[in-house]
């Protein structure tokens, strides 16, 4: 390596998870639950828990803790908890039910998760996720989630990328919506019962850490602009991922890193920020005005076949290109998994064929996803029943009918495996700050398998967090800390002065124009493929742009009103800081693994080449202070139940 890494960060002490009990893997969760302290129901009412976010993780946690009897304060930036971005997940949720008798088991789901994550996840967490998966389906069915069923009335399953069993439960192409509505309805029931205090259109802008514990948050009422201080005995972040750092992603417009980033600045370590997943099946970009990208469920790869013309520059209509002149490149390169290879592999393969000049559609950044043979095999009606709403969505956006013309797809940023570092109890490096769902880093390693995000969100919210936060709260009462505590006052003051600063710049460029430029840099240099040279360049570019942002951004209006420009400005300011850390993390990780593909490290076939000797660890970054360098803490990954192998999907 030619760059001097010490220019970018400093090494700190190693870090370890000390909360998973030292017992055989399959007993870990049961033992941990048994060891955990309980809180007497009468005392739960005296304990307040703040939860940020109302998605699958935050919503299910709020409903469950409210029902357990805790006093819950739940916040979301949307106008209703039902709108959290989990709602947009299409394909399904995994569970090791083995309803298909195809050899599935908890152990296999665990194995698939660790292998899919390219051996960069913690064994104990991944095992627990697989173990709990089974309970989630039972819980959701009891709530009335209308999963797809067979004619006999039993639940149906489909297969998904990266695995060879059929373990995905689904509700047409709207699984996330149905699961979220289940959690939302359970949450509304607790709101009505007075157990959960819901604050919609409120955004968390600062974490309050007092006397060594997370004790509250500062939020902004997005309608009136009022800065409010809320205190609690514990704080939970279920605020989702940071994919919008790329500007264009499949995330909702409002998804942001602010809650987790503010916590990071207060002492929570940020783990593996460079692990960002690019989803292979999204609708290609159509113009500069584009505000977001739309994902087409990966489940389409079950029946659709991906191809490009064998020769570059072939402008014939796809139906006029004979089979012999098509390259079904995934089926050719990976005969065992074919079109169902994991997301990172499928995405890079699409980029490669487009880089070779064989891409299709405007700009040549697209590949075909073709349903002609599925329609021939199953009939149009069966295809319609399975994928109808996805086909409609595609047609609305592109104006093309996928029953007649193959879809065009291209990879887009979709999910972030990185997030705040947590131990087995889902507790961050700040005592009393718990992090759940996509906001933490814990279960997916360097790459997440399809249909596993919904599983993790609900596993954390319904089943893992409740006993673990009770264990923490069993030590309460903690020191008396009110909104007049110096730390709480300082946090509210910091929020106010930051807002004033943003409003005072009064420059000449819009927030979106900065965000779009930042997104271009991160996508180009810290996207599907990274290089040392590119990352070094990206860090400089990000720093320059960030400096320009604070000098030249234009934020109209005032704080004391509904001000969407001000909201965006605060989020983009935090994305700048995160983007730099992502690039530093990607630069330091001088290997390829999962979604982190360093061009310098690949096999002869162009696959990710890991360096287990030097990089089999979680990189947990500590905030280095304003203008300071981040501090790297390594958590070694030890595999006792799985042998680390070169991933192969051939």
């Amino acid at each position, binding site marked *: 390596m030619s760059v001097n890494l010490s220019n970018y960060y400093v090494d700190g002490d190693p870090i370890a998870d000390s909360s998973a009990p030292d017992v055989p893997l399959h007993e870990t969760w049961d033992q941990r639950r048994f060891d955990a302290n309980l809180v007497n129901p009468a005392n739960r009412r005296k304990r307040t828990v703040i939860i940020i976010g109302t998605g699958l993780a935050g919503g299910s946690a709020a409903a469950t803790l409210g029902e357990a009897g805790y006093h819950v304060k739940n916040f979301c930036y949307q106008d209703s908890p039902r709108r959290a971005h989990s709602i947009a997940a299409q394909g399904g949720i995994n569970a090791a039910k083995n309803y298909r008798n195809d050899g599935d088991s908890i152990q296999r789901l665990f194995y698939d998760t660790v292998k899919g994550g390219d051996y960069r996840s913690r064994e104990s967490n991944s095992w627990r996720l697989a173990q709990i998966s089974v309970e989630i389906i039972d819980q*959701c069915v009891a709530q009335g989630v209308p999963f797809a069923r067979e004619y006999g009335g*039993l639940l149906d399953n489909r297969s998904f990328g990266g695995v060879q069993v059929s373990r995905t439960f689904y509700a047409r192409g709207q699984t996330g919506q149905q699961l979220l509505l289940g959690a939302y309805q359970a949450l509304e029931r607790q709101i009505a019962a007075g157990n959960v205090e819901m604050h919609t259109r409120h955004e968390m802008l600062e974490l309050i850490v007092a006397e060594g514990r997370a004790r509250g948050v500062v939020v902004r009422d997005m309608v009136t602009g009022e800065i409010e201080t809320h205190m609690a005995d514990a704080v939970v972040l279920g605020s989702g991922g940071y994919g919008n750092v790329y500007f264009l992603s499949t995330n*909702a*417009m409002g998804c942001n890193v602010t809650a987790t980033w503010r916590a990071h600045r207060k002492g929570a370590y940020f783990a593996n920020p460079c692990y960002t997943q690019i989803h292979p099946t999204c609708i290609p970009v159509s113009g500069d005005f584009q505000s977001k990208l739309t994902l087409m469920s990966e489940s389409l790869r079950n029946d659709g076949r991906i191809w490009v013309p064998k020769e570059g520059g072939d402008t014939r209509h796809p139906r006029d290109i004979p089979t012999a002149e098509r390259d079904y490149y995934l089926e050719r390169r990976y005969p065992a998994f074919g079109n169902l290879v994991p997301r990172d592999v499928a995405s890079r393969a699409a980029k490669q064929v487009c880089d070779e000049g064989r891409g299709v559609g405007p700009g040549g950044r697209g590949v075909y996803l073709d349903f002609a043979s599925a329609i021939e095999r199953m009939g149009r009606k069966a295809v319609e029943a399975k994928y109808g709403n996805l086909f409609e969505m595609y047609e609305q956006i592109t104006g093309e009918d996928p029953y007649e013309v193959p879809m065009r797809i291209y990879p887009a940023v979709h999910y972030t495996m990185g997030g705040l570092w947590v131990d087995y109890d889902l507790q961050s490096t700040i005592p009393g700050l718990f992090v759940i769902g996509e906001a933490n880093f814990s279960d997916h390693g360097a790459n997440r398998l399809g249909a596993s995000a919904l599983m993790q969100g609900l596993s954390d919210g319904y089943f893992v967090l409740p006993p673990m936060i009770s264990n923490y709260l069993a030590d309460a009462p903690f020191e008396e800390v009110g909104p007049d505590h110096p730390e709480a006052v300082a946090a509210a003051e910091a929020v106010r002065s930051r807002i004033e600063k943003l409003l005072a710049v009064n420059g000449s460029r819009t927030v979106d124009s900065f965000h779009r430029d930042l997104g271009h840099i991160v996508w180009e240099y810290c996207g599907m493929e990274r290089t040392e040279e590119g990352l070094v360049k990206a860090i400089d570019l990000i720093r320059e742009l960030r400096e320009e942002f604070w000098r030249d951004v234009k934020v109209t209006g005032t704080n004391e009103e509904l001000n969407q420009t001000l909201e965006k400005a605060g989020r983009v300011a935090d994305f700048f800081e995160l983007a730099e850390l992502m690039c530093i993390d990607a630069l330091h990780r001088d290997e390829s693994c999962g979604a982190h593909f360093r061009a310098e490290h690949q096999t002869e076939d162009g696959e990710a080449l890991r360096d287990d000797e030097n990089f089999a660890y979680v990189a947990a970054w500590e905030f280095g202070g304003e203008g300071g360098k981040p501090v790297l803490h390594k958590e070694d990954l030890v595999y006792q139940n799985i042998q680390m192998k070169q991933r192969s999907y051939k």
Partner: protein
Amino acid sequence: MNITLRVWRQPDSDAPGKMHTYQVADVSEDMSFLEMLDVLNEQLTIDGEDPIAFDSDCREGICGMCGLVINGLAHGPGKNVTTCQLHMRSFADGDVIDVEPWRAEPFTVIKDLVVDRSSFDRIIQAGGYITAPTGTAPEANSIPVNKADADAAFDAATCIGCGACVAACPNGSASLFMAAKVAHLGLLPQGQPERHSRVLDMVDQHDAEGFGGCTQIGECTAACPKGIQIDLISRMDRDVLSAIAHRK
């Protein structure tokens, strides 16, 4: 293409609002309607004017956050689409387009095109759920569900709670929203124990919020981005009658 927009501007819920006219040049037909508004807002910001406030989040038709009345139609001229899924190819060069917020008494305007839909959450709070505490639930396959019922429950459950049905209804009724939830849960075996109390409590809350009654006009179904069918309202009415008959 070039478009003239007439947009409802209102600084806050207490201030009066009025229509303002804006010109938007060089609109691409591949833009979504909201992306066209983004472009206008970029220009307004540069000019130092207050950008137009409107709600949107997922921009793929599923979160239910967006919703504009476009030329008098909730979610505009498209069929089965939300505002965010409406593309400018549905319009022509030189068009004059009116853009207004959802209008109904319980949907207070917060600013410009942003309205308060918290009444929908309170209707769900009143009974739009199945009481199933988190814990060890019955094995998922222990209760088979007839596929036709499961599919019908799913169709009803696709409601995104956007409020277009209310905006479109001359009576300002939220009956379609409510009927969709009543059908979703009432079609499933898990939803039977609370079927009667659910529908009565939800209807009471609906009326208390100030929504109007249903007179079977059908504008709701026409505006619904998810194609929720009006016969669900009749189904809900039957449930109400049955619930009253069984009231103890």
